[in-house]
């Protein structure tokens, strides 16, 4: 079953192609162009509407939130952000989140690229069978492993610590191992052979050749991991019991029920906006890697 998935998504040298097709009448081209912009623009406005609404509410004074018809951006009230941040120990949540996310990203990058090198470049009996098994677990629903994993962490005394969230990341994530392996397969073997002749061992080849050359793929993995870890809700929800250990995602989910914020929509939306900012920033910074990383990884071929 998984061999079919592998075949359907197997590695393949990427054929770059430009989607623009020559030889069309200019008038039709212009019509198409205008139509494209129109549809993309309209869809874009529709997609972004909830964000505008969130931001608009975040900037309102309490008495204006329930005004009808709504005023979108009249007299922005920036003090809401400061108020939302001080009503809860936000810096504490941010620090917790930063600790967890940075270690998860580090662990994932190191373990996945390490394993991917073995799978991509070194030969050993059973390697491909192991690889298939690892890849097959991409399709394993997390719900199946959830209960025993929780019991295991409970047994180890890791509940209410960051360990259950961080340590698994150091044991590789199948999807990213796959992505990096596909990338390593595209790196010319001659580079490795040259290094071998110069006396470099496998570990050195991984560290000084594979890692630097795979920066775009690593960046892709980094962004995906950051966003997944930052937005993760289920893990922190079940493993972190003390409020002082909470991450932003868990803290945010309790805001409506919290006596400190209660149903004050403007503060709630201010907090939500603040919570969304790190993901958006990371995404904007790494945006150019996204499509490229996916294309290069050959995931779709």
């Amino acid at each position, binding site marked *: 079953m998984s061999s079919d998935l592998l075949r359907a998504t197997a590695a393949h040298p990427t*054929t770059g192609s430009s989607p623009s097709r020559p030889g069309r009448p200019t008038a039709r081209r212009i019509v198409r162009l205008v139509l494209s912009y129109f549809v993309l623009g309209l869809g874009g406005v529709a997609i972004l509407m909830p964000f505008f609404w969130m931001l608009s509410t975040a900037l309102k004074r309490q008495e204006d939130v329930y005004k009808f018809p709504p005023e979108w951006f009249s007299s922005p009230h920036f003090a809401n952000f400061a108020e939302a941040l001080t009503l809860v120990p936000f810096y504490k949540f941010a620090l917790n989140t930063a600790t967890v996310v940075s270690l998860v990203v580090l662990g994932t990058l190191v373990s996945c690229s390490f394993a991917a090198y073995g799978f991509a470049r070194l030969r050993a009996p059973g390697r491909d069978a192991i690889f298939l098994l690892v890849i097959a677990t991409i399709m394993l629903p997390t719900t199946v492993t959830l209960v025993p994993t929780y019991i295991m962490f*409970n047994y180890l005394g890791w509940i209410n610590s960051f360990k259950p969230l961080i340590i698994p990341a150091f044991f590789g994530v199948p999807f990213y191992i796959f992505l990096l392996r596909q990338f390593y397969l595209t790196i010319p073997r001659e580079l490795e052979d040259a290094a071998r002749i110069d006396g470099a061992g496998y570990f050195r080849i991984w560290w000084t050749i594979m890692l630097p050359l795979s920066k775009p793929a690593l960046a892709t993995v980094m962004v995906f991991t950051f966003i997944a870890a930052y937005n993760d809700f289920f893990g922190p929800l079940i493993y972190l019991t003390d409020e002082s250990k909470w991450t932003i995602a868990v803290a945010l989910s309790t805001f409506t029920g919290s006596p400190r914020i209660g149903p004050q929509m403007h503060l709630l939306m201010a907090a939500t906006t603040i919570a969304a900012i790190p993901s958006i920033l990371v995404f904007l910074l790494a945006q150019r890697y996204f499509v490229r990383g*996916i*294309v290069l990884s050959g995931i779709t071929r």
Partner: protein
Amino acid sequence: MTTTSTPPRRRLSMRRREAIACYIFMAPAILGLLLFAIGPMIASLLLSFTEYDMLSAPQWVGLANFQALIGDELFHKSLRVTAVYSLVTVPTILVISFILANLLNQKIRGISFFRSVYYLPTVISGVAVAMLWRWMFNGEYGLVNTLLDKIGIDGPNWFQDESWALPALIVTSLWTFGSTTLIYLAGLQGVPNEIYEAAQVDGASRLRQHLHITMPMVSNVTFFNLVMGVIGSLQVFAEPFVLTGGGPNNSTLLLPLYLYRNAFEYLKMGYASAIAWASFLIVLALTLLVFKSLPYWVHLEGSTEERNR
């Protein structure tokens, strides 16, 4: 790879050294596989035959949990809710993503800006998105009802209304189609341009090009997105948990939510494991079905190129 000239003894030791290195490099993944996939899977299966509240030792109860599942009204409801949710979100997201990816695959000015815009909701999905949509669907002051009011429709109190909570949850999920679109986009960029040029020479219309070139050429991407979509839709948790908590009257009780309740609210670890395995078997059956259908609609490498040249 095909060196036969090297003396056999040296080759063997080189090979052996390479194999040892290979195992060392694979070690984290192998350990991860055992500790976080295969091990827990077996443990989960065993637990599903027990009663276990984490306080006293697990009691072997045989098939009792599964028998209880058969008679569990809430489990049935949860299955129905999940089925509706998946049947609506997965195909809708596939269609939207395919069309959008084609639009986003044009070489026009500012296209990367649009790509970012459409991917943005996916980036912040989770609790923040749930909070945002909770406000969007607010019965009295939410944007959705404000807009509906403008065209003379009196919108319901979405997440508090038994018949509207699931549709509202589905809309929330439809908003995050970004990953599917991105994977389609990557697939589209892998389609060789010469095929389109050849089709143009033959006078094929744009629609025909879409039907007979683009769609078959990215059918493997569709397959990938379909499988991942099905698996993903059966694991959605943050949005229903934050938006409705499964209510009203369990109308949004997706399977993971029901599992969470049993495991972490009622501490019925054995029963929760049985739910996990039941849903796993369903996913497995669905995935196998998709795989079985593979030869009928997915063009594997080679066949398409020969046909189009």
